[in-house]
C-alpha cells in the first residue's frame, strides 16, 4: 500500500467517527497545551527574575552578618539579627584590590506619616551616596543622598516610587516633609521604579543617610548588610576570598567559620533558578500526567476501533492486505490523532501563556525547545499507545474476523 493511499484511508476512518476522534484529540490537546503553558511560565519567570536581579547592579557581592548554617539557605539566616558587621569593616574591605565601591546599609521598618496624615509602614533604608552607584539606582526626580548629608546626620529622605504614590498620590513630594518614627524628614528625591527582585520590593522603600539611620532612627552601631561592587566579573571569586580573610582577621574569627556571610549574585540567581526549575518540573509533570491520560485515551479509542472494525480488518486481509499494511494503518491513525492534537495543543498552550502574561502579569516564554519537546512527545505517545492496538488488528485471523458479529 502506498503512503498516499494510506493517508486517504486514515482520513476516511478518522472522519467517519468525528466525535470520538475529536474527543480523543482533545485529550492530547489538553495535555500538550498544559505542558507548553507550564514550561513557558517557568521559563518566563526564570528570565524575568534573572533580569530583575541583574538590574539591581552587576558584579555585586553582598555581605550579611551571621553565618549560614548548612542546608538552611540564605533566607533563614536572619538577616539583621546578628550584629557583627560594623562601619569600620568598610575601611578593611576598601583596601582589597579589585573592590570598586562599597555600600554599607541598615534597614528597618518604621511607621511613616505624610503631612496630610496618610500612614504607611515601610522599610527605611540607611544608605550612603555609594548606594545609588553600587545598587544601580536611577532617579526619577530630585537627587540621592550625598556624603555631606550623611556626615551631618541630615534629616533628608529619598522615596521609592511606590511610597511616594502611597503618601502623596498625585502631588509632588519633593520639598515636602514626612514623619518617620515621629521625626521630620525633608524629601529630596524619588527613585525610578525597579520592580521586585525575589523577596524584596525595591519600590516600597525610603532611603535616609546611613548615619542618620544608625544614630537618630534606630540607635544602633552595626550594619545589616554591605553591598560591594567588584571591578571585574572575573575578580569576583578572588575578592570574595580576600574579604573573608580580611574580615575574619578583623573580627578575630576562624575564616572557615566566619560570623558573616558573603552572597554573590550568582548564588542568588542559582538558588532562585533552582527553585524555579523545581517548580517548573513539578508543573510540567502534572501536565505530563494529563498527557499520559490523553495517551491512554488514544489507546482506548484504538482498541475500540479495532474491535468495532474487526470485520473490516478481516475483509482487508481477505482481499490482500498484509500484516504490515494493517499495522501501519492503525499506527499512523493513532499518530495522526496525537499529531493533530499536538499542533492544536501547541497553539492553545501558546495562546494560554499569552493570556497569562497579559492578565496575570507573569512573563511567559514559549521556547522552540518546549514546542519540539511536545511535538516529539505527542508523536511518541501515538506510537507507544497505538502500537499494541495496531498489532492486535494485524494479528487478527481473517476467517474469524470476517465471521465476527
Amino acid at each position, binding site marked *: 500500500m*502506498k503512503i498516499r493511499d494510506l493517508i486517504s484511508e486514515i482520513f476516511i476512518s478518522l472522519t*467517519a467517527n468525528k466525535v470520538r476522534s475529536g474527543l480523543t484529540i482533545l485529550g492530547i490537546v489538553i495535555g500538550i497545551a498544559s505542558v507548553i503553558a507550564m514550561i513557558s511560565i517557568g521559563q518566563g519567570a526564570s528570565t524575568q527574575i534573572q533580569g530583575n536581579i541583574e538590574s539591581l547592579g552587576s558584579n555585586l557581592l553582598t555581605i550579611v552578618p551571621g553565618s549560614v548554617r548548612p542546608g538552611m539557605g540564605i533566607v533563614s539566616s536572619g538577616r539583621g539579627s546578628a550584629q557583627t558587621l560594623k562601619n569600620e569593616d568598610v575601611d578593611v574591605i576598601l583596601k582589597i584590590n579589585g573592590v570598586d565601591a562599597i555600600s554599607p546599609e541598615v534597614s528597618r521598618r518604621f511607621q511613616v506619616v505624610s503631612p496630610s496624615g496618610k500612614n504607611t509602614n515601610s522599610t527605611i533604608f540607611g544608605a550612603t551616596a555609594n548606594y545609588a552607584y553600587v545598587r544601580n539606582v536611577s532617579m526619577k526626580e530630585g537627587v540621592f543622598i550625598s556624603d555631606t548629608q550623611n556626615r551631618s546626620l541630615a534629616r533628608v529622605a529619598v522615596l521609592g516610587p511606590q511610597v511616594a504614590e502611597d503618601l502623596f498620590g498625585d502631588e509632588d513630594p519633593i520639598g515636602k516633609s514626612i514623619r518617620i518614627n515621629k521625626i521630620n524628614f525633608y524629601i529630596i528625591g524619588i527613585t525610578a521604579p525597579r520592580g521586585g527582585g525575589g523577596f524584596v520590593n525595591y519600590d516600597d522603600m525610603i532611603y535616609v543617610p546611613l548615619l542618620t539611620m544608625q544614630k537618630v532612627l534606630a540607635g544602633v552601631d552595626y550594619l545589616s548588610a554591605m553591598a560591594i561592587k567588584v571591578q571585574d566579573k572575573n575578580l569576583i571569586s578572588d575578592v570574595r576570598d580576600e574579604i573573608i580573610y580580611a574580615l575574619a582577621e578583623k573580627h578575630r574569627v576562624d575564616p572557615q567559620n566566619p560570623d558573616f556571610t558573603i552572597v554573590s549574585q550568582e548564588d542568588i540567581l542559582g538558588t532562585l533558578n533552582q527553585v524555579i526549575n523545581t517548580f517548573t518540573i513539578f508543573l510540567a509533570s502534572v501536565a505530563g500526567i494529563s498527557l499520559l491520560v490523553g495517551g491512554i485515551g488514544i489507546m482506548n479509542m484504538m482498541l475500540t476501533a479495532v474491535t468495532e472494525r474487526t470485520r473490516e480488518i*478481516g*475483509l*482487508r486481509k481477505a*482481499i490482500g*492486505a498484509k500484516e504490515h499494511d494493517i499495522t501501519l494503518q492503525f499506527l499512523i491513525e493513532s499518530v495522526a490523532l496525537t499529531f493533530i492534537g499536538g499542533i492544536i495543543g501547541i497553539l492553545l498552550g501558546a495562546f494560554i501563556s499569552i493570556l497569562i502574561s497579559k492578565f496575570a502579569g507573569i512573563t511567559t516564554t514559549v521556547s522552540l525547545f518546549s514546542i519540539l519537546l511536545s511535538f516529539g512527545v505527542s508523536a511518541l505517545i501515538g506510537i507507544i499507545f497505538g502500537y499494541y492496538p495496531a498489532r492486535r488488528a494485524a494479528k487478527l485471523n481473517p476467517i474469524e474476523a470476517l465471521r465476527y458479529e
Partner: protein
Amino acid sequence: MEEDNLNNMIVCENITKIYKNEDIETVALKNISLKINEGEFVAIMGPSGSGKSTLMHILGCLDSPTSGEYFLDGEDVSKLNDDELAEIRNRKIGFVFQAFNLLPRTTVLRNVELPLIYAGVSPKQREERAKQALKESAFPDKFWYHYSNQLSGGMMQRVAIARSLVNDPKIILADEPTGNLDTKTGEIVLETFQTLNQKQGRTIVLITHEPYIAEHAERIIRIRDGELVDDSKNHHQRIINNKK
C-alpha cells in the same frame, strides 16, 4: 498435477483439515480431492457443519490444510505463510461474502478499488478498472459516488461482485452470496454470476447450503461431514434469462 489438464484452475489432493482446540481434535475435512477447470461454474453444497466453509477458506487461501496439497493456477499454495497467502488472494482470488463486507462511509468506487490499492496500482488505473468492473457486474453508474451504506442489499452485493472482479482474479469465490437477500434480488445476483461465467468465461465457485441456489451452477459438489459425497454435472441448470 496432471500434465494433460493445462486448464486445471484448482487441484486439491487429499486435503485434510484438523482443528485442535486444547485437547479436542475436530476433523473438518477428510481426504478431499477435487479439480475445477478454468471457466467452470461450480457449486459446493452441504448442510451447515459439513465443512464447506472450511473448504472454501482453503480454496480461498484464507487457511492452509493440515495435510494434502492444493494447487491454484498451477502454484502450490498449501505451504505458504500469511503474507504470501495475502498476496495470492490479492492477485488470484475474488471474494463475495454473504454479508457483503463493504467499507461503510466509503464511496462505491473506492470500495471496488480497495484490492487494487493493496496491489499498489496507480489511482488513475484504479479508477478505470473499478469502473469497468462495476459495468461488468451491472451496477448503475449513477450510484458510483454514493456511500456504500446508502445502497440496498442487492446493490451492495453487486458492488461486492465488482470488487471481486477488479483484480481480474483466476477464481471468484462466493460464500452464500444470496444469504442476506430476498429471492428476487438473489436471482439478480445469480444472474450476474451466470453472465460473468458465460460471457467472460470466469471461474466461479459458489458455496451454499440451498439446493435451489446450487442448481444455478453447471456442476455441484456435495459435502457431508467433511467428506466429498457427490461430484456431478448439473443436468438441469437453472438459467436465468434476462427479462428485458
